[in-house]
């Protein structure tokens, strides 16, 4: 029984990073509110940010993986992680939808690389950004940039209780309405991405009078053309609209 017995099972967990800002790692190791309990509840067999030892090849009850795949070696590592892990969750917008690193995929990639490096260019091994799900089966998505409180905790608890997770799947508007914010899109005509964006942040931006910029990524049932139409009616140019939809979801939209 998950709650009753005396002996406590400490699932073995690993945290892995691909191309990203390491923010999800910091969220787990520092920013989140259940920090102390997380450290006590899990045996982190691999978490480079937090430990200088650690076994990459360890068998795991839970693998949390952040970052976009932008290098061939990462794809190899990812497959290994998958093989070793009972449960693998993609953490953060980079791992789930490509996030900021995938902006590159929306342009001429070599041009973009040239702007950052001149001499070293031929030594780079970068490949087109892709998400974890392109290479392995992902058991769940802890959305957000950085991940939302509910989903991160749900991911951890699901393993502790050995039950399936239930991640948030509705729009930011739902959270926004529950907070009683007057709608920025309807009332002020601000190009808010809330209607198509997966909730989990607590409607942060609209709550501080800012249009949602979709850092949690598009929700599954997003009606993208319909919101684009709306933005056009608000007077946004095609370029401005595209930018809003490709900030965190460039890859999803390409498909």
């Amino acid at each position, binding site marked *: 029984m998950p709650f009753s017995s005396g002996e406590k099972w400490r699932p073995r967990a690993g945290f892995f990073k691909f191309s990203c800002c390491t923010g999800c790692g910091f969220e787990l190791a520092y920013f989140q509110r259940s920090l102390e309990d997380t450290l006590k509840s899990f045996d982190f067999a691999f978490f480079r940010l937090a430990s200088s030892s650690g076994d990459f090849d360890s068998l795991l009850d839970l693998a949390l993986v952040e970052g976009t795949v932008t290098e061939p070696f990462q794809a190899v590592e990812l497959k290994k992680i998958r093989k070793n892990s009972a449960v693998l969750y993609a953490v953060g917008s980079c791992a789930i939808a490509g996030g900021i690193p995938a902006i590159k995929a929306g342009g001429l990639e070599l041009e973009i690389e040239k702007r950052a490096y001149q001499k070293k260019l031929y030594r780079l091994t970068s490949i087109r950004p892709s998400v974890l799900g392109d290479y392995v089966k992902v058991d769940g998505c802890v959305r957000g940039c950085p991940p939302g409180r509910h989903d991160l905790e749900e991911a951890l608890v699901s393993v502790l209780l050995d039950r399936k997770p*239930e991640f948030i799947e509705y729009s930011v508007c739902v959270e926004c309405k529950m907070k009683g914010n007057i709608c920025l899109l309807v009332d002020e005509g601000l190009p808010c991405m809330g209607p198509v964006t997966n909730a989990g942040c607590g409607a942060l931006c609209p709550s501080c009078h800012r249009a949602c910029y979709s850092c949690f990524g598009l929700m599954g049932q997003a009606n993208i053309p319909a919101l684009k139409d709306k933005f056009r009616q608000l007077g946004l140019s095609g370029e401005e609209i595209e930018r809003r939809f490709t900030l965190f979801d460039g890859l999803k939209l390409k498909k």
Partner: protein
Amino acid sequence: MRKNPYVPFKAAIRGIRRETGDVSTFLLEPESGLPPGAPGQFNMVGYPGVGEAPISLSRVPMEGSDLLEHTIRAVGRVTYFLSAFRQGDEIFLRGPFGRGWPVNEAGGKHLVLISGGLGLAPIRPVIQMSDKLQARRITLLHGARDPGSVIFKTEFRHWRKKGIDVRLTVDEPGGGWRHHAGMVTEIVRELQIRPAETVAFICGPEIMMRFAADELFLKDVPGSSVYVSPERRMRCGMGLCGHCQHGVWFVCKDGPVFSYPELKGYPDALF
């Protein structure tokens, strides 16, 4: 029912019978206070921290015994979690909820029970009380995917002894299968009935219920004699949370058993 309808009852697992690879029947002894329930009704079954799921009674307490049974396939969040439970553990129940099978209508009639897969679970209590139904005749038509996924296998012999005409079919027969092979609708088609004296209870996947009902209608069974029990997402079981709404109905409190005409015509279903 408790004053606060959200407070669950504990029930101790007295036994677990493995039906198939992922289906188990839990024999449960609830703490006192849980009303016994009727065939076709369901409980919200769950565990704190995981949630609740509507599970129909596969045995209702009867004849001095408080024991009830739930037959559960480990697929959803709650059911998968419960599949790890062992004898002696406790689970949590609220209920029983809903409108069950109209068993009184079977009196003097030919009761045709049609089930597919796990749909046999809510039908089983009807069979268990068959002596009291005063039905003229009872036929059970049960279909499953393959021989390995037939539940309550050991009971068919006993049911036949009680005089019930049990006919089985599987979609994918394997070696040694001595019964019919094919869809459950096919064995419905073969059935000899007098339409005006027939009442049918159907439970299974929605598409199977619809086709099975259609076969009966071809035999001129009136719609009002055909009862089905659809599945819906439920959170409360009491007609409050709204998830199970289908047309004007709350499947949890107005159903889960409906006569066919009650459901007919509403969108988002196959009826």
